[in-house]
């Protein structure tokens, strides 16, 4: 049986370990696990030739829903009804329901989540202690803090300009959600007319521009990749960085031993109507291809991987949150305490379903953001451009539509 994974901050050694354990449990099965940071480049030809792997985590560079709608993904409905490994429940009930819903279409479950990434702001704890700064909770506090940091000739905030999602997930969407509530965001995801022009988005854009104009974003970040901006943070040239919960894992080989960082929710608007505990939640999408040679084994193996015991192990080893609920007492690495706490405390989670449904729209939003950030567009023009792209997507009959319920 063959398993193809996206090779990212968590590596694939855990999956390989699971494979070995599974093989011991089922001696007639051999599992080949492999991974690649651009695994989709190798998956596309495999799907095209009708010889896909048995289980895969395709990553973000492939249009998964296009696969689903072309009948290339195995519906997992039946398998989910089976009992889970290690607990007295059906497999389907071990997942966090809202995260399972993401992969559902037309009544069938196609994409299954495994680990959960969340997003927030990391700050240089030692630097903050030295200067007596406290992490900001509100936008107002953020502005004051940035002014103080700037005086010390340190860049207050940096992010990966080459990957605008860091900005979108780190503050643009959270600020819109804070200003107008999660409904504003979900209306936009549903491509409702005028949704992307909502005053909440406009306010968020204006705040981004205000921060930029005041010089609170690191110069040159537009040319930085994820790891580059993270290096700037580690080297101490930037004090805060919006980043995912994978930061520690991704940079573990270069983090200096005396460096301390802590995780906070991104600052929100004090007078905002949105839920201040709302956290970003993006589950990894795993799928079993329709033309897989061994869909049953693949499904069973995945069921093993997502059993609460293995999930707990993954959490403790890799420091990643999981989409499997009720893990009981977990011993998280210290840097994951806060992310886990915030996710557990969150009254609601928000995700980026639209970017998986409409990749072309996502591309346009990212490009528009870059132009906006570099001041080629005013905040008004920026939201207008996004709205236009959303309209084109909505009115294009060849693009299948999805809805957040």
């Amino acid at each position, binding site marked *: 049986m063959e398993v193809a994974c996206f090779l*990212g901050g968590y590596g694939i050694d855990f999956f390989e370990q699971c494979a070995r354990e599974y093989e011991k449990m089922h001696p007639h099965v051999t599992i080949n696990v492999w991974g690649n940071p651009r695994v989709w480049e190798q998956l596309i030809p495999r799907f095209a030739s009708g010889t896909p792997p048995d289980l895969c985590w395709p990553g973000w560079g492939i249009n998964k829903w296009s696969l689903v709608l072309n009948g290339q993904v195995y519906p997992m409905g039946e398998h989910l009804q089976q009992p889970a490994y290690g607990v007295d429940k059906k497999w389907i009930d071990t997942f966090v329901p809202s995260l399972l819903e993401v992969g559902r279409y037309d009544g069938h479950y196609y994409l299954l989540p495994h680990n959960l990434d969340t997003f927030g702001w990391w700050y240089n704890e030692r630097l903050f202690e030295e200067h007596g700064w406290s992490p900001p909770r509100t936008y107002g506090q953020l502005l004051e803090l940035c002014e103080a940091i700037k005086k010390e000739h340190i860049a207050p905030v940096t992010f990966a300009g080459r990957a605008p999602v860091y900005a979108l997930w780190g503050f643009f969407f959270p600020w819109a959600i804070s200003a107008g509530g999660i409904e504003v965001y979900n209306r936009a995801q549903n491509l409702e007319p005028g949704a992307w022009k909502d005053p909440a988005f406009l306010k968020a854009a204006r705040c981004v521009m205000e921060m930029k104009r005041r010089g609170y974003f690191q110069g040159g970040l537009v040319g930085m990749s*994820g790891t580059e901006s*993270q290096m700037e943070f580690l080297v101490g040239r930037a004090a805060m960085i919006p980043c995912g919960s994978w930061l520690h894992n*991704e940079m573990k080989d270069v983090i200096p031993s005396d460096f301390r960082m802590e995780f906070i929710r991104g600052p929100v608007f004090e007078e905002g109507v949105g839920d201040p505990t709302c956290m970003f939640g993006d589950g990894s999408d795993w799928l079993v291809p329709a033309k897989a040679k061994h869909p049953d084994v693949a499904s069973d193996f995945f069921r093993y991987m997502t059993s609460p015991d293995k999930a707990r192990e993954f959490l403790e080893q890799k420091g990643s949150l999981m989409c499997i609920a009720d893990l009981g007492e977990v011993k998280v690495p210290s840097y994951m305490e806060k992310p886990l706490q915030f996710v557990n405390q969150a009254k609601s989670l928000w995700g980026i379903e639209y970017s998986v449904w409409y990749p072309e729209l996502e591309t346009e939003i990212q490009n528009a953001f870059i132009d906006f950030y570099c001041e080629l567009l005013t905040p008004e023009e920026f939201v207008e451009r996004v709205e236009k792209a959303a309209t084109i997507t909505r009115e294009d009959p060849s693009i299948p539509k999805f809805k957040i319920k």
Partner: protein
Amino acid sequence: MRRIVAARTVSRACRYALLGGHGLLVLFPMLWLLTTSLKDTWSIFKDPWKLPETLQWVNYSKAWISGGLGWKFWNSMVVDLVALTVILLVAAMAAYALARFKFPGNRVIYYLFLSGMALPVFLAIVPLFMLMTDLHLLNTRVGLITIYVAYMLSFPIFILYGFFKTLPGELAEAALIDGCTPFGVFWRVMLPLAKPGLVTAGIFVFIGLWNEYPLALVFLSKGELQTLPVGIASLTMTQRYQADWGALFAALTISVIPTVFFYTLFQRQIQAGLTAGAVKG
């Protein structure tokens, strides 16, 4: 007189400034690449301008082994040498037939091959992808070699056509009188005489294949089988995930050295070939 001398000195100074300036522009990034490849990631970020304190040769072994560059190097060698051999053979045969025999459609076929140099390759990439999928040649070395042959025939045919055309006919006749088969005429008489053309075409094709990226990206993306350019590109994106800039610089240096070295060795032929190809055309 003095004005002329002064003007000459100024113009000489300008000339050397121009040449030297461009020379610097060419060499400086390459030298920087070399020196930075011997630094560790931390100092690359902290002090980009400082020369390495200790030479981190480990970067190179990391790039070669865990980056898999050794394998990619080998893949490139295999694919390119096999493709080169096939290309030269097939092109020589076709050029010979076109240059030395009169038959209906000769001109049309010749221009058909030539047009290949002008058409953008990417136009055909989608149907080619589908074709290779149907033939089960996707992600195989054989598949990529086949594509390389098809796409690199035009230039050698063009060069060899010119060579074969100018070879005197009496040699062929003499050989035939001696009882040589027409194929033998080709193989034993004409082909050796066209050696300079073969060498020129061969060098160009090899360098072109060694550096080729888009086709290899689409048709041979499987990790273990990747050619060097594809491997380096994907390594860049990998290393970015694993934040090992030192090894990344080393990998890049590894990829640059072979062709630069090879070119320096054969630079006279290459320079001659470049101009021949254009001037003749």
